[in-house]
Protein backbone atom coordinates (compact mmCIF):
# COMPACT_ATOMS: atom_id res chain seq x y z
CA UNK A 1 0.00 0.00 0.00
CA UNK A 2 1.43 3.34 -1.01
CA UNK A 3 -0.35 6.04 0.91
CA UNK A 4 1.87 9.02 0.28
CA UNK A 5 2.33 10.59 -3.13
CA UNK A 6 5.89 11.06 -4.36
CA UNK A 7 7.12 14.37 -3.01
CA UNK A 8 7.64 17.02 -5.65
CA UNK A 9 11.01 17.72 -4.06
CA UNK A 10 12.18 14.12 -4.31
CA UNK A 11 15.92 13.90 -3.86
CA UNK A 12 16.21 10.15 -3.84
CA UNK A 13 14.10 7.91 -6.01
CA UNK A 14 13.81 4.20 -6.47
CA UNK A 15 11.99 3.30 -9.65
CA UNK A 16 10.56 -0.21 -9.74
CA UNK A 17 13.69 -1.67 -8.20
CA UNK A 18 14.01 -5.39 -7.69
CA UNK A 19 16.89 -7.44 -6.48
CA UNK A 20 17.20 -11.17 -6.61
CA UNK A 21 19.91 -13.55 -5.58
CA UNK A 22 19.57 -16.69 -7.62
CA UNK A 23 15.96 -17.68 -7.18
CA UNK A 24 15.43 -15.65 -4.03
CA UNK A 25 13.75 -12.30 -4.54
CA UNK A 26 14.98 -9.96 -1.83
CA UNK A 27 13.25 -6.81 -3.07
CA UNK A 28 10.36 -6.91 -5.47
CA UNK A 29 9.36 -3.98 -7.64
CA UNK A 30 9.69 -1.16 -5.11
CA UNK A 31 9.06 2.41 -6.11
CA UNK A 32 9.56 5.25 -3.71
CA UNK A 33 10.60 8.88 -3.66
CA UNK A 34 12.15 10.58 -0.68
CA UNK A 35 12.53 14.29 -0.12
CA UNK A 36 14.02 16.38 2.65
CA UNK A 37 13.46 15.17 6.21
CA UNK A 38 14.07 11.99 8.14
CA UNK A 39 12.59 8.75 6.83
CA UNK A 40 12.71 5.49 8.73
CA UNK A 41 13.20 2.33 6.72
CA UNK A 42 11.49 -0.47 8.55
CA UNK A 43 11.16 -4.17 8.12
CA UNK A 44 11.56 -7.44 9.88
CA UNK A 45 14.76 -9.42 9.53
CA UNK A 46 14.81 -10.90 6.04
CA UNK A 47 12.13 -8.51 4.79
CA UNK A 48 14.47 -6.97 2.23
CA UNK A 49 15.09 -3.80 4.24
CA UNK A 50 18.88 -4.10 4.15
CA UNK A 51 18.92 -4.94 0.46
CA UNK A 52 16.72 -1.93 -0.34
CA UNK A 53 18.87 0.28 1.88
CA UNK A 54 22.04 -0.86 0.13
CA UNK A 55 20.48 -0.32 -3.29
CA UNK A 56 19.40 3.19 -2.30
CA UNK A 57 22.88 3.97 -1.05
CA UNK A 58 24.60 2.61 -4.15
CA UNK A 59 26.34 -0.32 -2.51
CA UNK A 60 24.56 -2.88 -4.65
CA UNK A 61 23.00 -2.65 -8.07
CA UNK A 62 19.31 -3.42 -8.60
CA UNK A 63 18.68 -6.49 -10.74
CA UNK A 64 15.91 -4.44 -12.29
CA UNK A 65 14.86 -0.80 -12.09
CA UNK A 66 17.06 2.05 -10.98
CA UNK A 67 17.93 4.26 -8.07
CA UNK A 68 18.33 7.94 -8.85
CA UNK A 69 19.79 10.80 -6.90
CA UNK A 70 18.61 14.07 -8.34
CA UNK A 71 17.88 12.14 -11.52
CA UNK A 72 21.30 10.49 -11.79
CA UNK A 73 22.35 6.93 -11.12
CA UNK A 74 24.65 6.78 -8.12
CA UNK A 75 26.29 3.51 -9.12
CA UNK A 76 27.29 4.97 -12.46
CA UNK A 77 28.05 8.56 -11.50
CA UNK A 78 30.24 7.97 -8.46
CA UNK A 79 30.93 11.70 -8.24
CA UNK A 80 27.44 11.93 -6.73
CA UNK A 81 28.84 10.42 -3.56
CA UNK A 82 29.88 13.99 -2.69
CA UNK A 83 26.21 14.52 -1.92
CA UNK A 84 25.91 11.35 0.11
CA UNK A 85 26.92 10.48 3.65
CA UNK A 86 26.84 6.85 4.61
CA UNK A 87 27.07 5.42 8.11
CA UNK A 88 27.30 1.63 7.82
CA UNK A 89 26.00 -0.87 10.32
CA UNK A 90 29.19 -2.92 10.10
CA UNK A 91 31.61 -2.32 12.93
CA UNK A 92 34.62 -2.55 10.59
CA UNK A 93 36.83 0.51 10.88
CA UNK A 94 40.47 1.42 10.37
CA UNK A 95 41.35 0.47 13.93
CA UNK A 96 44.99 1.49 13.60
CA UNK A 97 44.11 5.11 12.79
CA UNK A 98 43.11 7.70 15.36
CA UNK A 99 39.61 9.08 15.08
CA UNK A 100 41.01 12.36 13.80
CA UNK A 101 43.22 10.71 11.16
CA UNK A 102 40.28 8.64 9.97
CA UNK A 103 37.94 11.58 9.59
CA UNK A 104 40.62 13.63 7.85
CA UNK A 105 41.25 10.81 5.38
CA UNK A 106 37.54 10.50 4.69
CA UNK A 107 37.21 14.26 4.14
CA UNK A 108 40.28 14.27 1.93
CA UNK A 109 38.77 11.52 -0.19
CA UNK A 110 35.71 13.73 -0.64
CA UNK A 111 37.91 16.10 -2.58
CA UNK A 112 38.89 18.63 0.04
CA UNK A 113 42.45 19.54 0.87
CA UNK A 114 44.59 21.63 3.19
CA UNK A 115 42.90 23.63 5.89
CA UNK A 116 39.45 22.61 4.71
CA UNK A 117 40.22 18.99 5.60
CA UNK A 118 41.28 20.00 9.10
CA UNK A 119 38.33 22.34 9.64
CA UNK A 120 35.71 19.89 8.43
CA UNK A 121 37.18 17.01 10.40
CA UNK A 122 37.20 19.06 13.60
CA UNK A 123 33.65 20.21 13.03
CA UNK A 124 32.45 16.67 12.43
CA UNK A 125 34.20 15.39 15.54
CA UNK A 126 32.59 18.13 17.62
CA UNK A 127 29.23 17.41 16.05
CA UNK A 128 29.24 13.88 17.44
CA UNK A 129 30.95 14.91 20.71
CA UNK A 130 34.10 12.95 19.96
CA UNK A 131 36.66 15.75 19.85
CA UNK A 132 38.16 14.80 23.22
CA UNK A 133 38.88 11.24 22.12
CA UNK A 134 39.92 12.12 18.59
CA UNK A 135 43.59 11.37 19.13
CA UNK A 136 42.99 7.86 20.45
CA UNK A 137 43.22 4.90 18.14
CA UNK A 138 39.84 3.75 16.88
CA UNK A 139 40.75 0.22 17.99
CA UNK A 140 40.58 1.48 21.58
CA UNK A 141 37.14 3.07 21.16
CA UNK A 142 34.02 1.74 22.84
CA UNK A 143 31.14 0.54 20.68
CA UNK A 144 29.35 3.85 21.12
CA UNK A 145 32.42 5.85 20.17
CA UNK A 146 32.92 3.70 17.08
CA UNK A 147 29.34 4.46 16.16
CA UNK A 148 30.01 8.16 16.60
CA UNK A 149 33.15 8.16 14.47
CA UNK A 150 31.15 6.43 11.72
CA UNK A 151 28.53 9.16 12.03
CA UNK A 152 31.21 11.84 11.88
CA UNK A 153 32.68 10.53 8.63
CA UNK A 154 29.20 10.42 7.14
CA UNK A 155 28.50 14.06 8.00
CA UNK A 156 31.90 15.74 7.67
CA UNK A 157 31.33 16.84 4.07
CA UNK A 158 27.82 18.23 4.68
CA UNK A 159 25.98 15.74 2.52
CA UNK A 160 22.56 16.39 1.09
CA UNK A 161 21.52 12.77 1.59
CA UNK A 162 22.47 10.82 4.69
CA UNK A 163 22.11 7.06 5.05
CA UNK A 164 22.24 5.76 8.61
CA UNK A 165 22.20 2.02 9.11
CA UNK A 166 21.26 1.14 12.69
CA UNK A 167 22.85 4.38 13.95
CA UNK A 168 22.11 3.87 17.64
CA UNK A 169 23.70 0.43 17.93
CA UNK A 170 25.74 0.07 21.09
CA UNK A 171 25.23 3.62 22.28
CA UNK A 172 24.66 4.59 25.89
CA UNK A 173 21.48 6.57 26.71
CA UNK A 174 23.20 9.94 26.70
CA UNK A 175 24.83 9.31 23.34
CA UNK A 176 21.53 8.04 21.98
CA UNK A 177 19.83 11.26 22.94
CA UNK A 178 22.59 13.27 21.29
CA UNK A 179 22.46 11.29 18.06
CA UNK A 180 18.65 11.32 17.93
CA UNK A 181 18.75 15.11 18.31
CA UNK A 182 21.41 15.33 15.64
CA UNK A 183 19.39 13.21 13.22
CA UNK A 184 16.30 15.32 13.82
CA UNK A 185 18.33 18.45 13.22
CA UNK A 186 19.72 17.06 9.97
CA UNK A 187 16.16 16.48 8.83
CA UNK A 188 15.03 19.92 9.97
CA UNK A 189 17.88 21.46 7.99
CA UNK A 190 16.43 20.00 4.84
CA UNK A 191 18.63 16.99 4.32
CA UNK A 192 17.19 13.74 3.11
CA UNK A 193 18.02 11.35 5.95
CA UNK A 194 17.26 7.65 5.58
CA UNK A 195 17.49 5.67 8.81
CA UNK A 196 17.35 1.91 8.75
CA UNK A 197 16.55 0.16 11.99
CA UNK A 198 14.70 -2.85 13.24
CA UNK A 199 14.07 -1.20 16.61
CA UNK A 200 10.83 0.66 16.14
CA UNK A 201 10.97 2.94 19.17
CA UNK A 202 14.34 4.14 17.91
CA UNK A 203 12.85 5.18 14.60
CA UNK A 204 9.86 6.71 16.34
CA UNK A 205 12.12 9.02 18.37
CA UNK A 206 13.61 10.35 15.13
CA UNK A 207 10.71 10.60 12.73
CA UNK A 208 7.04 9.92 11.99
CA UNK A 209 7.80 9.32 8.35
CA UNK A 210 8.43 5.71 7.44
CA UNK A 211 8.91 3.31 4.58
CA UNK A 212 7.84 -0.17 5.52
CA UNK A 213 9.03 -3.17 3.58
CA UNK A 214 7.77 -6.69 4.10
CA UNK A 215 8.67 -9.84 2.21
CA UNK A 216 10.47 -7.79 -0.37
CA UNK A 217 7.50 -5.56 -1.14
CA UNK A 218 7.00 -1.96 -0.21
CA UNK A 219 4.08 -2.16 2.16
CA UNK A 220 3.63 1.44 3.25
CA UNK A 221 5.23 4.83 2.81
CA UNK A 222 4.39 8.06 4.57
CA UNK A 223 3.51 9.47 7.97
CA UNK A 224 2.67 6.89 10.63
CA UNK A 225 -0.67 8.51 11.42
CA UNK A 226 -1.58 8.88 7.75
CA UNK A 227 -0.76 5.25 7.16
CA UNK A 228 -2.83 4.25 10.09
CA UNK A 229 -5.76 6.33 8.93
CA UNK A 230 -5.50 4.84 5.48
CA UNK A 231 -5.87 1.33 6.78
CA UNK A 232 -9.60 0.60 6.52
CA UNK A 233 -11.21 -1.91 8.84
CA UNK A 234 -8.12 -1.95 10.95
CA UNK A 235 -8.26 -3.08 14.56
CA UNK A 236 -7.72 -0.43 17.16
CA UNK A 237 -7.81 0.13 20.89
CA UNK A 238 -9.69 3.18 22.18
CA UNK A 239 -9.70 4.59 25.70
CA UNK A 240 -12.75 6.64 26.73
CA UNK A 241 -12.74 8.77 29.87
CA UNK A 242 -16.20 9.06 31.37
CA UNK A 243 -17.79 9.86 34.72
CA UNK A 244 -20.06 6.87 34.11
CA UNK A 245 -17.43 4.34 33.14
CA UNK A 246 -19.38 1.24 34.20
CA UNK A 247 -22.52 2.20 32.26
CA UNK A 248 -20.42 3.09 29.23
CA UNK A 249 -18.52 -0.20 29.40
CA UNK A 250 -21.77 -2.12 29.68
CA UNK A 251 -23.21 -0.28 26.70
CA UNK A 252 -20.18 -0.87 24.50
CA UNK A 253 -19.89 -4.53 25.47
CA UNK A 254 -23.17 -5.28 23.73
CA UNK A 255 -22.17 -3.80 20.37
CA UNK A 256 -21.25 -6.01 17.40
CA UNK A 257 -18.36 -3.76 16.42
CA UNK A 258 -16.72 -4.07 19.84
CA UNK A 259 -14.54 -7.12 20.43
CA UNK A 260 -13.80 -6.49 24.08
CA UNK A 261 -14.20 -3.93 26.85
CA UNK A 262 -12.38 -3.40 30.12
CA UNK A 263 -11.80 -0.67 32.65
CA UNK A 264 -8.12 0.11 33.07
CA UNK A 265 -6.16 1.25 36.13
CA UNK A 266 -6.97 4.90 35.36
CA UNK A 267 -10.69 4.24 35.33
CA UNK A 268 -10.91 4.61 31.58
CA UNK A 269 -13.07 2.36 29.45
CA UNK A 270 -10.80 0.54 27.01
CA UNK A 271 -12.62 -0.84 23.99
CA UNK A 272 -11.10 -3.06 21.28
CA UNK A 273 -12.52 -3.20 17.81
CA UNK A 274 -11.56 -4.84 14.53
CA UNK A 275 -13.25 -2.13 12.47
CA UNK A 276 -11.91 1.24 13.55
CA UNK A 277 -13.54 3.32 10.86
CA UNK A 278 -17.02 1.94 11.52
CA UNK A 279 -16.47 2.13 15.26
CA UNK A 280 -15.64 5.85 15.13
CA UNK A 281 -18.60 6.46 12.81
CA UNK A 282 -21.08 4.72 15.13
CA UNK A 283 -19.70 5.83 18.49
CA UNK A 284 -21.32 9.34 18.65
CA UNK A 285 -24.74 7.81 17.95
CA UNK A 286 -24.38 5.26 20.75
CA UNK A 287 -23.30 7.91 23.22
CA UNK A 288 -26.13 10.26 22.32
CA UNK A 289 -28.75 7.52 22.34
CA UNK A 290 -27.93 6.51 25.91
CA UNK A 291 -26.84 9.96 27.13
CA UNK A 292 -23.43 8.65 28.03
CA UNK A 293 -21.00 11.42 29.03
CA UNK A 294 -17.48 11.13 27.57
CA UNK A 295 -14.73 13.61 28.40
CA UNK A 296 -11.91 12.26 26.31
CA UNK A 297 -11.30 9.72 23.55
CA UNK A 298 -7.79 8.45 22.95
CA UNK A 299 -6.43 5.91 20.49
CA UNK A 300 -3.98 3.80 22.45
CA UNK A 301 -2.25 2.08 19.58
CA UNK A 302 -1.55 5.06 17.35
CA UNK A 303 2.13 4.29 17.33
CA UNK A 304 4.64 2.77 15.00
CA UNK A 305 4.66 -0.61 16.68
CA UNK A 306 0.92 -0.98 16.30
CA UNK A 307 0.98 0.05 12.65
CA UNK A 308 3.91 -2.24 12.02
CA UNK A 309 2.31 -5.18 13.82
CA UNK A 310 -0.89 -4.71 11.93
CA UNK A 311 0.73 -4.37 8.51
CA UNK A 312 3.09 -7.29 8.85
CA UNK A 313 0.60 -9.40 10.75
CA UNK A 314 2.70 -9.42 13.94
Amino acid at each position, binding site marked *: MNVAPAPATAVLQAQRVSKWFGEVIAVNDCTLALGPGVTGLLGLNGAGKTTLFKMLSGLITPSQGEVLIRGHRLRRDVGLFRRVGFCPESDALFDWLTGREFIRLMVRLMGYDGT*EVVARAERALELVHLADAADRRIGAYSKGMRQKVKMAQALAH*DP*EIVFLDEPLNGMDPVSRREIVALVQRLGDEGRCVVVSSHILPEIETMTRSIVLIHRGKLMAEGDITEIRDAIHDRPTIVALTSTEARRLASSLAGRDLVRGVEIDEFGRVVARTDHAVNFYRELPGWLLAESLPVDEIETLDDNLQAVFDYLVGG
Partner: protein
Amino acid sequence: MNVAAPSAAGNDQAGNDRPLGLAVSAFWIAFFSFREMVRRRRILSVGLLMLLPVVLAVAWRLLDREGMIPPELLLANLSGMVYIHFMVAVVSLAFGLSAIGESADEGTIIYYWTRPLRREAIYLGRLVAAQAVAGLLVAGSLVAAFLVMTVGNFGIITLDFLKLYVSACLVILFGAVVYTAIFAAVGTGLKKPMLPAILFAFGWESIGGNAPLRLQELTVVFHLRNLLHNSAASTGSMPNLLQELKVMLLHEVPPSTGHSFLVLLAVAAVAFVLGCWLLRRKEIFR
Protein backbone atom coordinates in the same frame (compact mmCIF):
# COMPACT_ATOMS: atom_id res chain seq x y z
CA MET B 1 26.84 23.37 16.16
CA ASN B 2 25.05 23.84 12.92
CA VAL B 3 25.81 21.61 10.04
CA ALA B 4 26.16 23.64 6.87
CA ALA B 5 23.13 23.81 4.65
CA PRO B 6 22.87 20.83 2.35
CA SER B 7 22.78 23.02 -0.70
CA ALA B 8 26.39 23.81 0.06
CA ALA B 9 27.22 20.15 0.08
CA GLY B 10 30.52 19.70 -1.60
CA ASN B 11 30.08 22.85 -3.59
CA ASP B 12 33.10 24.77 -2.49
CA GLN B 13 36.45 23.04 -2.68
CA ALA B 14 35.09 19.70 -3.74
CA GLY B 15 33.31 21.55 -6.48
CA ASN B 16 31.02 19.38 -8.52
CA ASP B 17 29.71 15.89 -9.04
CA ARG B 18 32.77 14.66 -10.90
CA PRO B 19 34.77 11.86 -9.31
CA LEU B 20 38.05 12.75 -7.68
CA GLY B 21 41.21 12.69 -9.83
CA LEU B 22 42.59 9.20 -10.32
CA ALA B 23 46.17 9.98 -9.32
CA VAL B 24 45.34 12.02 -6.21
CA SER B 25 42.79 9.58 -4.86
CA ALA B 26 44.94 6.54 -5.67
CA PHE B 27 47.87 8.20 -3.90
CA TRP B 28 45.93 8.77 -0.68
CA ILE B 29 44.41 5.31 -0.74
CA ALA B 30 47.83 3.79 -1.37
CA PHE B 31 49.38 5.86 1.41
CA PHE B 32 46.86 4.78 4.03
CA SER B 33 46.57 1.22 2.72
CA PHE B 34 50.34 0.82 2.95
CA ARG B 35 50.19 1.87 6.60
CA GLU B 36 47.36 -0.59 7.12
CA MET B 37 49.10 -3.48 5.40
CA VAL B 38 52.38 -3.14 7.28
CA ARG B 39 50.38 -3.53 10.47
CA ARG B 40 48.92 -6.85 9.43
CA ARG B 41 50.13 -9.71 11.57
CA ARG B 42 51.06 -11.73 8.51
CA ILE B 43 53.93 -9.37 7.80
CA LEU B 44 55.83 -11.06 10.61
CA SER B 45 55.37 -14.59 9.31
CA VAL B 46 56.08 -13.58 5.72
CA GLY B 47 59.03 -11.52 6.90
CA LEU B 48 60.45 -14.54 8.70
CA LEU B 49 59.99 -16.64 5.60
CA MET B 50 61.87 -14.04 3.63
CA LEU B 51 64.88 -14.80 5.76
CA LEU B 52 65.28 -18.17 4.02
CA PRO B 53 67.67 -16.85 1.35
CA VAL B 54 69.56 -15.06 4.10
CA VAL B 55 69.91 -18.34 5.99
CA LEU B 56 71.20 -20.00 2.83
CA ALA B 57 73.70 -17.20 2.41
CA VAL B 58 74.82 -17.66 6.03
CA ALA B 59 75.23 -21.41 5.40
CA TRP B 60 77.29 -20.59 2.34
CA ARG B 61 79.55 -18.32 4.38
CA LEU B 62 79.97 -20.93 7.08
CA LEU B 63 80.28 -24.11 5.04
CA ASP B 64 81.93 -23.09 1.80
CA ARG B 65 85.19 -21.83 3.19
CA GLU B 66 87.15 -23.25 0.28
CA GLY B 67 85.19 -21.27 -2.27
CA MET B 68 83.73 -24.22 -4.17
CA ILE B 69 80.60 -22.24 -4.91
CA PRO B 70 81.48 -18.86 -6.39
CA PRO B 71 79.35 -15.95 -5.10
CA GLU B 72 77.92 -15.31 -8.58
CA LEU B 73 76.70 -18.90 -8.77
CA LEU B 74 75.13 -18.68 -5.32
CA LEU B 75 73.45 -15.41 -6.21
CA ALA B 76 72.13 -16.77 -9.51
CA ASN B 77 70.77 -19.88 -7.82
CA LEU B 78 69.19 -17.88 -5.01
CA SER B 79 67.55 -15.58 -7.53
CA GLY B 80 66.44 -18.22 -10.00
CA MET B 81 65.39 -20.99 -7.66
CA VAL B 82 64.61 -19.51 -4.26
CA TYR B 83 63.31 -16.03 -4.98
CA ILE B 84 61.63 -16.44 -8.35
CA HIS B 85 60.23 -19.89 -7.76
CA PHE B 86 59.14 -19.50 -4.17
CA MET B 87 59.67 -16.29 -2.23
CA VAL B 88 58.18 -13.87 -4.74
CA ALA B 89 55.08 -16.03 -5.15
CA VAL B 90 54.62 -16.36 -1.39
CA VAL B 91 54.94 -12.68 -0.61
CA SER B 92 52.75 -11.66 -3.54
CA LEU B 93 50.16 -14.19 -2.55
CA ALA B 94 50.11 -12.92 1.04
CA PHE B 95 49.56 -9.28 0.12
CA GLY B 96 48.06 -9.45 -3.38
CA LEU B 97 45.12 -11.70 -2.52
CA SER B 98 44.11 -9.49 0.39
CA ALA B 99 44.59 -6.15 -1.37
CA ILE B 100 40.92 -5.82 -2.24
CA GLY B 101 39.36 -9.09 -1.08
CA GLU B 102 40.18 -8.71 2.59
CA SER B 103 39.05 -5.11 2.72
CA ALA B 104 35.75 -6.13 1.13
CA ASP B 105 35.33 -9.08 3.51
CA GLU B 106 36.06 -6.97 6.57
CA GLY B 107 33.80 -4.20 5.40
CA THR B 108 36.33 -1.34 5.47
CA ILE B 109 36.14 -0.94 1.69
CA ILE B 110 32.75 0.66 2.24
CA TYR B 111 34.49 3.86 3.33
CA TYR B 112 36.26 4.11 -0.03
CA TRP B 113 33.18 2.94 -1.84
CA THR B 114 31.01 5.75 -0.52
CA ARG B 115 33.40 8.51 -1.64
CA PRO B 116 33.41 10.13 -5.08
CA LEU B 117 36.18 7.80 -6.20
CA ARG B 118 36.50 5.87 -9.41
CA ARG B 119 36.69 2.15 -8.73
CA GLU B 120 39.96 2.21 -10.69
CA ALA B 121 41.42 4.62 -8.15
CA ILE B 122 40.43 2.38 -5.25
CA TYR B 123 41.87 -0.64 -7.02
CA LEU B 124 45.05 1.13 -8.07
CA GLY B 125 45.65 2.55 -4.60
CA ARG B 126 45.19 -0.79 -2.87
CA LEU B 127 47.25 -2.61 -5.50
CA VAL B 128 50.15 -0.17 -5.34
CA ALA B 129 50.16 -0.44 -1.54
CA ALA B 130 50.23 -4.26 -1.74
CA GLN B 131 52.99 -4.14 -4.34
CA ALA B 132 54.97 -1.72 -2.20
CA VAL B 133 54.70 -3.95 0.86
CA ALA B 134 55.60 -7.07 -1.13
CA GLY B 135 58.47 -5.24 -2.82
CA LEU B 136 59.73 -3.90 0.49
CA LEU B 137 59.85 -7.37 2.03
CA VAL B 138 61.62 -8.81 -1.00
CA ALA B 139 64.03 -5.89 -1.12
CA GLY B 140 64.78 -6.28 2.58
CA SER B 141 65.56 -9.93 2.06
CA LEU B 142 67.77 -9.17 -0.94
CA VAL B 143 69.70 -6.51 0.95
CA ALA B 144 70.14 -8.82 3.96
CA ALA B 145 71.37 -11.65 1.72
CA PHE B 146 73.78 -9.26 0.02
CA LEU B 147 75.13 -8.06 3.34
CA VAL B 148 75.60 -11.61 4.63
CA MET B 149 77.49 -12.51 1.48
CA THR B 150 79.72 -9.47 1.36
CA VAL B 151 80.39 -8.12 4.87
CA GLY B 152 83.91 -9.12 5.79
CA ASN B 153 84.19 -10.71 2.38
CA PHE B 154 84.58 -7.60 0.29
CA GLY B 155 86.79 -9.36 -2.23
CA ILE B 156 83.75 -10.87 -3.92
CA ILE B 157 82.34 -7.46 -4.83
CA THR B 158 83.38 -7.22 -8.43
CA LEU B 159 81.69 -5.23 -11.14
CA ASP B 160 80.19 -8.44 -12.58
CA PHE B 161 78.88 -9.46 -9.19
CA LEU B 162 77.30 -6.05 -8.63
CA LYS B 163 75.75 -6.02 -12.09
CA LEU B 164 74.37 -9.49 -11.49
CA TYR B 165 73.02 -8.49 -8.09
CA VAL B 166 71.35 -5.32 -9.31
CA SER B 167 69.79 -7.02 -12.33
CA ALA B 168 68.60 -9.94 -10.17
CA CYS B 169 67.05 -7.47 -7.71
CA LEU B 170 65.23 -5.66 -10.51
CA VAL B 171 63.88 -8.88 -11.99
CA ILE B 172 62.79 -10.21 -8.60
CA LEU B 173 61.06 -6.95 -7.69
CA PHE B 174 59.42 -6.87 -11.09
CA GLY B 175 58.25 -10.43 -10.44
CA ALA B 176 56.73 -9.33 -7.13
CA VAL B 177 54.87 -6.53 -8.91
CA VAL B 178 53.52 -8.85 -11.60
CA TYR B 179 52.51 -11.65 -9.24
CA THR B 180 50.87 -9.20 -6.82
CA ALA B 181 48.83 -7.76 -9.70
CA ILE B 182 47.68 -11.26 -10.64
CA PHE B 183 46.78 -12.25 -7.10
CA ALA B 184 45.00 -8.95 -6.44
CA ALA B 185 42.69 -9.68 -9.38
CA VAL B 186 42.14 -13.24 -8.16
CA GLY B 187 41.36 -11.93 -4.66
CA THR B 188 38.91 -9.40 -6.07
CA GLY B 189 37.06 -11.90 -8.19
CA LEU B 190 36.86 -14.96 -5.99
CA LYS B 191 35.25 -15.32 -2.59
CA LYS B 192 37.71 -18.03 -1.54
CA PRO B 193 40.78 -17.28 -3.60
CA MET B 194 43.49 -19.00 -1.55
CA LEU B 195 43.33 -22.49 -3.04
CA PRO B 196 43.12 -21.38 -6.68
CA ALA B 197 45.97 -18.95 -6.04
CA ILE B 198 48.16 -21.64 -4.47
CA LEU B 199 47.36 -24.00 -7.32
CA PHE B 200 48.36 -21.30 -9.76
CA ALA B 201 51.55 -20.27 -7.95
CA PHE B 202 52.89 -23.66 -7.04
CA GLY B 203 51.03 -25.91 -9.43
CA TRP B 204 50.70 -24.29 -12.81
CA GLU B 205 53.75 -22.08 -12.47
CA SER B 206 55.96 -25.00 -11.39
CA ILE B 207 54.70 -27.57 -13.85
CA GLY B 208 53.96 -25.26 -16.76
CA GLY B 209 57.16 -23.32 -16.19
CA ASN B 210 59.19 -26.43 -16.79
CA ALA B 211 57.04 -27.90 -19.53
CA PRO B 212 58.70 -28.43 -22.89
CA LEU B 213 58.13 -26.42 -26.02
CA ARG B 214 56.18 -23.20 -25.94
CA LEU B 215 53.80 -24.19 -23.18
CA GLN B 216 56.20 -22.77 -20.63
CA GLU B 217 55.88 -19.37 -22.22
CA LEU B 218 52.40 -19.23 -20.76
CA THR B 219 53.82 -18.95 -17.28
CA VAL B 220 55.09 -15.87 -15.47
CA VAL B 221 57.97 -17.76 -13.96
CA PHE B 222 59.35 -18.66 -17.39
CA HIS B 223 59.61 -15.03 -18.42
CA LEU B 224 61.12 -13.99 -15.12
CA ARG B 225 63.64 -16.78 -15.45
CA ASN B 226 64.33 -15.67 -18.98
CA LEU B 227 65.07 -12.15 -17.78
CA LEU B 228 67.35 -13.58 -15.13
CA HIS B 229 69.01 -15.97 -17.56
CA ASN B 230 69.95 -13.17 -19.87
CA SER B 231 71.47 -11.21 -17.05
CA ALA B 232 73.22 -14.21 -15.47
CA ALA B 233 74.23 -16.03 -18.62
CA SER B 234 77.72 -16.90 -17.53
CA THR B 235 77.13 -18.04 -13.97
CA GLY B 236 76.46 -21.71 -14.63
CA SER B 237 73.54 -21.69 -12.18
CA MET B 238 70.99 -24.49 -12.20
CA PRO B 239 68.25 -22.52 -14.04
CA ASN B 240 70.78 -21.42 -16.61
CA LEU B 241 72.05 -24.94 -17.14
CA LEU B 242 68.50 -26.17 -17.67
CA GLN B 243 67.90 -23.38 -20.12
CA GLU B 244 71.07 -24.21 -22.04
CA LEU B 245 70.11 -27.87 -22.07
CA LYS B 246 66.73 -27.09 -23.60
CA VAL B 247 68.32 -24.97 -26.28
CA MET B 248 70.70 -27.77 -27.12
CA LEU B 249 68.34 -30.74 -27.01
CA LEU B 250 65.02 -29.27 -28.07
CA HIS B 251 66.36 -26.48 -30.22
CA GLU B 252 64.16 -24.11 -28.31
CA VAL B 253 65.32 -20.57 -28.71
CA PRO B 254 64.15 -18.55 -25.72
CA PRO B 255 62.46 -15.22 -26.37
CA SER B 256 64.46 -12.05 -26.01
CA THR B 257 64.65 -10.07 -22.80
CA GLY B 258 62.49 -7.36 -24.31
CA HIS B 259 59.87 -9.90 -25.32
CA SER B 260 59.69 -11.39 -21.82
CA PHE B 261 59.60 -7.94 -20.27
CA LEU B 262 56.70 -6.91 -22.49
CA VAL B 263 54.84 -10.15 -21.82
CA LEU B 264 55.16 -9.62 -18.07
CA LEU B 265 54.11 -6.01 -18.40
CA ALA B 266 51.09 -7.10 -20.43
CA VAL B 267 50.19 -9.73 -17.83
CA ALA B 268 50.30 -7.11 -15.08
CA ALA B 269 48.25 -4.69 -17.19
CA VAL B 270 45.63 -7.31 -18.06
CA ALA B 271 45.42 -8.35 -14.40
CA PHE B 272 44.93 -4.70 -13.45
CA VAL B 273 42.18 -4.14 -16.01
CA LEU B 274 40.49 -7.39 -15.01
CA GLY B 275 40.73 -6.46 -11.33
CA CYS B 276 39.18 -3.04 -11.99
CA TRP B 277 36.36 -4.62 -13.95
CA LEU B 278 35.70 -7.11 -11.17
CA LEU B 279 35.72 -4.35 -8.57
CA ARG B 280 33.23 -2.28 -10.56
CA ARG B 281 30.90 -5.26 -10.58
CA LYS B 282 31.44 -6.03 -6.91
CA GLU B 283 28.62 -5.48 -4.49
CA ILE B 284 29.08 -4.68 -0.84
CA PHE B 285 26.82 -6.62 1.48
CA ARG B 286 28.47 -5.88 4.83
